């Protein structure tokens, strides 16, 4: 018994080493190009201004320098103490939740329409939903801003019939509109491919056993397309959470989303340490969403084992 175990071990060892060596280049690449900068940045946010951080530290303003070995939370405390930052976090979360919800409802609607009704119109709507993918975000943001601004299309049309439409430019609503616009294509592709792959036979079987449209959707189609829907949701949410271009162009000066804040703190205020604190905040928020994604992946991996 003991001997066989030893034998298995000795034959397994070189294999494990080989596997490790084969995985080494990508691991090193990630360690050097992503890991090291992250460690440096987090270290800087904790007040470690020496070493490779000394270049940035030499021109930064209002830095908190570590006094103890592990560092200091002073930069984090400073940011959390400003009411402005707390409002910005709240707005960022709000915009993320709203945009994701709207994107999901639209994507599901388009996908279900395509799956259950089909036909040329449904196909055209799905194709229309994908078009924003081919328009650069900067141009889209600018177009959305001018479309809803005081002298924009909406207000011009209303003015023709003597009505006064609200000017939506530079509002939080505009950010939501822009985020939905830019996130929709990926969600539509993801969700509709998931829903399309539900076999006809399953839907027919559900209908044959007397399930209505709602019941079929709720109990058969959605559970079967669950993974792609979760992926679309998490990717949309993480994308909106860290977005810069859309809120920068279309949003108000205050409150602002965190992506715009990072740029402001980094460039306009010359406070890179505080910018990193914001980046860490976004990272923490995104990790929360990422957990959902990982959980869904595990679920799908497990269900394949069954």
């Amino acid at each position: 018994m003991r001997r066989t175990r030893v034998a298995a071990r000795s034959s397994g060892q070189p294999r494990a080493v080989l596997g490790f060596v084969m995985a080494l280049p990508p691991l090193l690449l990630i360690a050097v190009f992503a890991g090291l900068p992250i460690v440096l940045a987090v270290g800087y946010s904790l007040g470690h201004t020496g070493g490779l951080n000394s270049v940035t530290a030499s021109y930064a303003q209002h830095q908190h320098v570590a006094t103890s070995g592990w560092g200091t939370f002073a930069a984090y405390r400073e940011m959390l103490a400003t009411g402005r930052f707390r409002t910005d976090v709240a707005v960022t979360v709000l915009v993320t939740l709203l945009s994701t919800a709207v994107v999901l409802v639209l994507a599901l609607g388009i996908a279900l329409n395509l799956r259950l009704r089909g036909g040329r119109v449904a196909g055209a709507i799905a194709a229309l939903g994908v078009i924003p993918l081919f328009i650069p975000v900067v141009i889209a943001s600018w177009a959305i801003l001018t479309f809803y601004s005081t002298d924009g299309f909406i207000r011009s049309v209303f003015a023709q019939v003597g009505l006064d439409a609200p000017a939506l430019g530079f509002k939080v609503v505009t950010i939501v509109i822009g985020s939905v616009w830019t996130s929709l294509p990926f969600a539509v592709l993801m969700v509709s491919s998931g829903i399309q792959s539900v076999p006809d036979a399953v839907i027919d079987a559900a209908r044959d056993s007397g399930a209505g449209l709602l019941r079929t959707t709720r109990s058969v189609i959605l559970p079967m397309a669950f993974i792609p829907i979760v992926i679309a949701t998490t990717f949309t949410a993480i994308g909106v959470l860290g977005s810069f271009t859309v809120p920068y162009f279309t949003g108000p000066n205050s409150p602002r989303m965190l992506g715009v804040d990072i740029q402001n703190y980094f460039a306009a205020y010359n406070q890179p340490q505080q910018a990193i604190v914001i980046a860490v905040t976004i990272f923490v928020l995104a990790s929360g969403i990422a957990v959902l994604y990982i959980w869904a992946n595990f679920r799908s991996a497990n269900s394949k084992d069954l």
Partner: protein
Amino acid sequence: MKRLTTVVALGAVTALALTGCAKKSGDDTAASSGGKTTVRVLISGDTNVQDLWDKGIVPGFEKANPNIAVTVELDLHGEHDSQNLAKMAAAVKGNSDSGMDLIDGGFVLQAAQAGFLAPADPSTVPGLSDVPGDIIKAGGGGGIPYRGSSVLLAYNSTKVAKPPQTLDTLLAWIKANKGQFTYNSPKSGGSGASFVTTVLDKYLSPADQQTLRTGYDQALESTWDKGFAELKSLNQYVYQGGVYPNGNAQVLQLLSAGSITMAPVWSDQFISGQKTGQIPATIKATQISDPSFTGGAAYLGIPKNSPNKAAALKLASYALTPAVQNVIATTIAGYPVIPLAKLPAQTQEIFKAAHPDTLRPTYFSQVTNDMNKAWDDKVPGK
């Protein structure tokens, strides 16, 4: 054990990567070849500045100095300012070549502040002897002022016959004409920053203003409170009840489209915009007084360990000669930084009304950074 090996391997790879970089930047030092020195100019700005260098400055300089060649590189709109500053910082600290010998851009002041630039004064750059001392001082010791511009009050002459002449009457006009005025957020462009600075300065003693212009004094920034309260009270009278666009250009666009009637604008953007027709002729500009809108100089900087420092200093001094200053004035509508009397009569005529010689300087760059943040915290949406 295994972990230790991983750490060692990681360390080795990092060291390799770093030495790789160092070697490469070392190779670049061979910019001079065959006895001819090459000055590498980096511009952070718009294409009009590149044109100025390519057509207005470089040909004459190369003709006068046959053993010096000049290459010009443009970083459009200064999008890589942070990276270029970091690159220069790393090069100066590690005493390697940064790949730039003369920089024309906004981050020059930051670099001067951090001590990365070669000191500039009339002994190293002879041309500076003609430039007012205040403007040189605002350069932080390494910045070489070579052209200026100021902010003016632009107004739609079809709606306003007599524009306000002082800051107080302007503030009264803004309150009396709801939604007809705006300025861009100070961080996004100098014209908005100038309006904010001017309102803040209204409540500051001349001595305090001077301190904030020539150095960094954080304690003094508390004197801004009254000014920020005034700016905050304007929110409801500003375009759409408090919309401050991002960037000088957005404000000019609103003004040209007729969405607003009055706004602070940069003199050079305004003059060249009218030349190209982007700004209609019905929009006119004037300077206010008590206090006037600020203006400032654009600075050149030379990294202190530049291998071609002597040639770069020569080029900087050349940019301050009356001939080049005249080119700057006529091509990009920049204010000359040397006395107007040294320029041709025709140019003197154009700039007579703008008083470029009495340029009211803006705050020191670090003070401006703090002002940008304070405005964001205290004014919009409050």
